[in-house]
């Protein structure tokens, strides 16, 4: 974790870095001023509701589209002008892969394998079998889910330093999803692979992610360690009679029909909860990430 001690070096050569990223489609704002840096070896789970701007953020981070404003860098290079050297080090799996549809799964993997110096052909072959993909069928004839599975195999077999997966869980059954998570976890541990994956399945993220980022209505609401997030935030419920004493600084606030309040509160600098947690009738509940996400984004 030297990178954390040397923020200047880390931010210029970081696997992924964006600053002040903003974009909109047809008048609707999709991203507003997003800053995000991934240190090497991080497994970042990007979570957000459908339409929160996750795919747009990912595409802009990788230079696959030009944002209206802001800066994006990959391993220190401007994302819109990546050299082949950097491209070899990254693997990106979109939600709906479309490339090379006229090849069979096996042909495609043989073909793209030649471009990667560390291609693991044996792994690709074994995974095709494991994930039930007919090696000789044309990619165009595969279902969208199968298509994404082939693309995930491509990404893993290239042994990238940076892997970016857009909603990888959507295409996988629970067993295959567990296989993928295991691959992500072990590569992060063994090779220090940096991973960014977006998902709306929070439990996947909780297993392997070291960090979590909440994207909500185009803004990054939260970006911190998964363990730290669970320890730092909680839900405070206050009965209607105490609601006037609610702390002002909260992450979210919902008033229920009976006048009682649910608030997401944060520990202070010395680990203490806000004073209101000691009020008569107050209740403090630990929050899993999914609950936290629903409280903030719901």
């Amino acid at each position, binding site marked *: 974790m030297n990178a954390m001690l040397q923020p200047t070096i880390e931010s210029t050569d970081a696997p992924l870095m964006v600053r002040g990223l903003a974009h909109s489609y047809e008048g609707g704002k999709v991203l507003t001023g997003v800053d995000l840096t991934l240190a090497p070896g991080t497994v970042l789970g990007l979570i957000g509701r459908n339409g929160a701007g996750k795919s747009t953020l990912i595409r802009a981070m990788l230079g696959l589209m030009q944002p209206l404003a802001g800066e994006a860098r990959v391993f220190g290079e401007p994302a819109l002008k990546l050299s082949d050297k950097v491209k070899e080090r990254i693997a990106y799996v979109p939600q709906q892969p479309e490339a090379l549809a006229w090849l069979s799964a096996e042909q495609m993997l043989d073909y793209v394998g030649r471009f990667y110096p560390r291609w693991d052909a044996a792994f690709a072959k074994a995974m095709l079998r494991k994930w039930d993909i007919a090696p000789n069928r044309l990619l165009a004839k595969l279902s969208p889910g199968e298509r994404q599975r082939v693309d995930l195999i491509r990404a893993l077999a290239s042994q990238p330093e940076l892997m970016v997966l857009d909603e990888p869980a959507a295409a996988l059954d629970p067993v295959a999803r567990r296989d993928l998570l295991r691959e992500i976890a072990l590569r992060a541990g063994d090779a220090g692979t940096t991973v960014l994956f977006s998902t709306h399945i929070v439990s996947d993220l909780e297993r392997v992610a070291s960090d979590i980022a909440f994207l909500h209505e185009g803004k990054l609401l939260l970006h911190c360690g998964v363990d730290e997030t669970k320890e730092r935030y909680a839900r405070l419920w206050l009965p209607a009679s105490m609601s006037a004493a609610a702390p002002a600084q909260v992450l979210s606030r919902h008033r229920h029909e009976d006048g009682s309040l649910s608030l997401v509160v944060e520990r202070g600098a010395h680990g203490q909860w806000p004073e209101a947690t000691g009020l008569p009738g107050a209740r403090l509940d630990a929050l*899993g990430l999914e609950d936290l996400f629903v409280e903030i984004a719901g």
Partner: protein
Amino acid sequence: MDASIFAIQPTSAEPIYRQIVEQLRRLIAGGQLASGELLPSVRDVAGFHAINPMTVSRAYGIAETEGLLERLRGKGMAVAAMHRGTQSQAHRLALLEAQLADVARHAQELELPAELVLRRLSKIMGGS
């Protein structure tokens, strides 16, 4: 011992590293893990449960600092040899503290007297 000794609940509000430390405390205090016994490697635990290896090393590190585990050169982590002394009754009781506090809070909310709750608890535990 293999990686299946741990039961991981990723969706729990309790971070995974703390679940592992807590389970180590219990397994060691309860004698299911004996002194000198080798623990599954970080990689094995991470692979088996599909969790981040850093989480497992963090848990092992904390358990080592607490004196539950010791690092054997070239072999990995083992249950600390000197740990037998801490398996006292007081120590084992301390492991129940959080659950007992929960029961106490629920009992108060339900306005149940301690005496009644205690009687019920001894019955569940098979006592008189």
